[in-house]
């Protein structure tokens, strides 16, 4: 069965290490995403799995078979390209039946498969159309149908929704997942869009600079980010710098700039250690009176952004640090610029990370 294993794989292009000693295990029939900013190596990793490029080091297994020296046509995979790469000189039908034909199936069988997959993507009535006559969404569906028709059990998707409009993209997301699940396929989906990855995947690997930062379900990544970068890239986080002042059972006191003190959950922190505190904007509570209470910080409302569903406040703390808060716009009273407020958070909702050696700004940079 097509589980995919990547073991200690490294790929260099000149001086750049695009994929740096990556190991992953993607289970059979899993919908798996490779998520990261552009240049993180996610597409390179997908191409390594497809056999379009060869690794410098490491092994790749598809269905427990070592495929390092197997050419792409024999890896039993389907690949959907970001640009779709529909053959412009063939109509939809010939594109879709291309796989069965080059694999040497007889015409009857090729045509049965062609009808099946076109039915599946609901484009049967457009089988005469050439790619140039199809809309972006249709091209995407033909590209998926073509990959499925080749009979592969592993589907590799390189930003398959990247070229589509927002609305179409959201619809096709669910359709893709449904199709993969209905057919019992293993899917590896590359994207830089975290909301797409969260919505579509069973598990996600967050990548950065050729390395895997964390692998987990969307919920795990959101609730328990293991690195500063994941806390930043999945959802949104406020980052506050500080030192661990003292550690008691289960809780730590962190001293921020300006001698402000807050409490956070303790996961093996050492006293006097420099740390970064990551707090999600939606976990913060805001009080209209600037009154000290447990685990609260005082500040003034700066910028206010109305985003539709939510309203977003930027609070300037006493120590001049900025902190963002998101509130549902239909709940409670709105604040005004220059209002004095107190913000607080439950200690267990704050994630504390060791301060990155390369600096915070550099650590969370996505470019």
């Amino acid at each position, binding site marked *: 069965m097509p589980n995919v294993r990547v073991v200690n794989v490294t790929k260099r292009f000149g001086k750049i290490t695009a994929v740096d000693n990556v190991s992953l295990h993607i289970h059979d029939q899993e919908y798996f995403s490779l998520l990261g900013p552009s240049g993180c190596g996610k597409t390179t990793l997908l191409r390594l799995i497809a056999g379009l490029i060869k690794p410098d080091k490491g092994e790749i297994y598809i269905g427990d078979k070592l495929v390092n020296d197997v050419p792409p046509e024999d890896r039993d995979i389907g690949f959907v390209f970001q640009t779709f*790469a529909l053959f412009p000189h063939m109509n939809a039908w010939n594109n879709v039946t291309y796989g069965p034909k080059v694999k040497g199936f007889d015409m009857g069988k090729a045509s049965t498969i062609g009808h099946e997959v076109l039915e599946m993507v609901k484009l049967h009535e457009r089988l005469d159309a050439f790619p140039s006559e199809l809309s972006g969404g249709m091209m995407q569906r033909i590209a998926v149908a073509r990959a499925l028709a080749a009979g592969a059990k592993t589907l590799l998707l390189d930003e398959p929704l990247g070229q589509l409009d927002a609305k179409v993209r959201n619809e096709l997301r669910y359709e893709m997942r449904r199709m993969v699940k209905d057919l019992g396929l293993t899917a590896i989906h590359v994207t830089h869009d975290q909301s797409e990855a969260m919505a579509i995947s069973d598990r996600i690997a967050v990548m950065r600079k050729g390395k895997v930062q964390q692998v987990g379900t969307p919920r795990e990544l959101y609730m328990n980010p293991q690195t500063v970068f994941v806390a930043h890239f999945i959802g949104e986080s406020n980052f506050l710098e500080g030192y661990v002042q003292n550690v008691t059972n289960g809780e730590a006191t962190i001293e921020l700039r300006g001698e402000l003190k807050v409490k956070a959950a303790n996961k093996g922190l050492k006293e006097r250690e420099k740390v970064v505190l990551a707090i999600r904007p939606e976990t913060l509570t805001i009080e209209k009176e600037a009154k000290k209470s447990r685990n609260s910080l005082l500040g003034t409302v700066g910028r206010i952004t109305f985003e539709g569903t939510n309203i977003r406040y930027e609070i300037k703390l006493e120590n001049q640090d900025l902190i963002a808060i998101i509130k549902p716009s239909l709940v409670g009273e709105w604040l005004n610029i220059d209002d004095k407020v107190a913000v607080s958070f439950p200690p267990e909702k704050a994630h504390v990370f060791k301060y990155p050696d390369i600096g915070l700004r550099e650590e969370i940079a996505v470019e």
Partner: protein
Amino acid sequence: MLLPKLRLAEALDGLSLKSSVKNSVYLIAIIIFIALILLPPVLGIIIKWSTMQNVLNEPDLTARALTAIQNSFIIAILVSLLDIATGMPLAWLIARGKSKWLNVLDTLADVPFIVPTAALGYSLLLFWSEPDGISSFFGASLISPGWLLVALLHFTFSYPVIVRVMVGALLDYKMEYERASRTLGAPPLTAARTVTFPMLKPSIIAAFILAFARSISETGATMIVAGLAFENGPVYIQKIKDAYGAGVLSKVTYEGATVFASLILIIISFVIFAIVRIAGQKLKVPQNRVWPSMERRLSYSKAEKSRNGVTLLIFFLIVIVPSLFVALPAFEALFTKTLSDAFSSTGIWSDYWQSLLTSYLLGAVVTVLNILIGLPMAILIARKKLGSFLSTALDLLVNVPLIVPSIALGASLAFFWKENFSFIPEMWLLIFAHLAITYPYFVRSMSAAVERIGVDLEEASRSLGAKPFTVFRTIILPLTKYSILSGAILVFTRSVSETGATLAVVSTMKTAPVVIVNWVKTKGLASSFDIGLGCGLLILFSFIILLALRFIAKGKGRY
């Protein structure tokens, strides 16, 4: 120095705002095109139409003409197909390979381009036929002058054209399509057959047409290697002219035979180009029948290595070594009296230096003229300034001189200008002839280059306040500089090589290839050292000029 130049540019910028000025620049370009390039190659033959009567009554001459033309087309088709079959694997190797030696290979592929065809012809003659060449291994002349040697020659000089066009096409081609094919289960060879080649078909057709046109037109080198008995179209026309010059044929018979042969050459060329263009579009590579197991076996390791081996063998043995073989006697000549003869320009050498000067001067003038009148035309075509119908029509008409074999073009030009405008000096006629021959190449490559620059860049420039000529000066010119240079190199080399049209047009003037053909064809006129050194010097100077042109453009960027 800078100031007046800037003033001129500013003055032109201002002028270009007036649409009357802008329009008249385009109008002049169109008028010159129609008057100098489009009509004379055809009109000359039409005005001599009636002389054909005199030849139709002479079955000997017509039969000879028909055989010669048949030879021309058989060789052209055969050679073009063989060139594509053998040039494609080399282009593939250059475009796709990873070895750093491929750069060397890439440069070597241009060698037959740089060698003027007359020198190339002599070089091949030495290599394949003369006792000093490869024949020395066999104890007898391996390939005597005749149709096989002509075919080999045409194969050799068309080869770089095919490789150049195909390398360009392969580099532009989006690999994604081929990768898609591979992931769908196609081995490399199947992917190439079903996806890559069908998508590159327009380039393959263009390459075929270029090779074909060159083979139909080439005269000088062909005369050198044709021997005494063998004739193709251009050789036949030239022999008729020689016979007239020697007083064997009357003027009307000569004119009639030339018109007869030229007309058939033009009509058949036209029909073949039309068929290739129209049928080529419809021609489908079989998609449905596939032979997975066989193609799979041919795709990998051993098969690939032996394919590359054969390709390189053909490239070196049939293209490179024969092309450069003339360097051997040229080198030997350095140690004989020939060298001092040459540089003191004694005897036949004074003729040589004069002709060399004529050739390069002609090449330079024709190149400059092409840039002046060809560039506006290229912009007209690329930007569809005259509406889509007229622009497409111009686009097609520009190719007319390409279809007319150059010796027929020269003959027609000679008839047209000499009959009607006899006061025009011969040098001008030569310039017109070479301009007509090179114009399609230049306009073709420039309009493609202009098309590659997005209209949005021009619009951005206009929106920032640039006047029309400022746009041309600051956007189009810098971005197409590399293309202009390569277009200029193409024009220059073509002009220096051109023999057929030159022979047809001139009566007294001589260009370098004409002199070399004459040396080879006239027994006892020049020693093999003379000819070798003559060819060697021609190649050397051409090479130095090309190198200088490349050096000027170097570092100025390819965008």
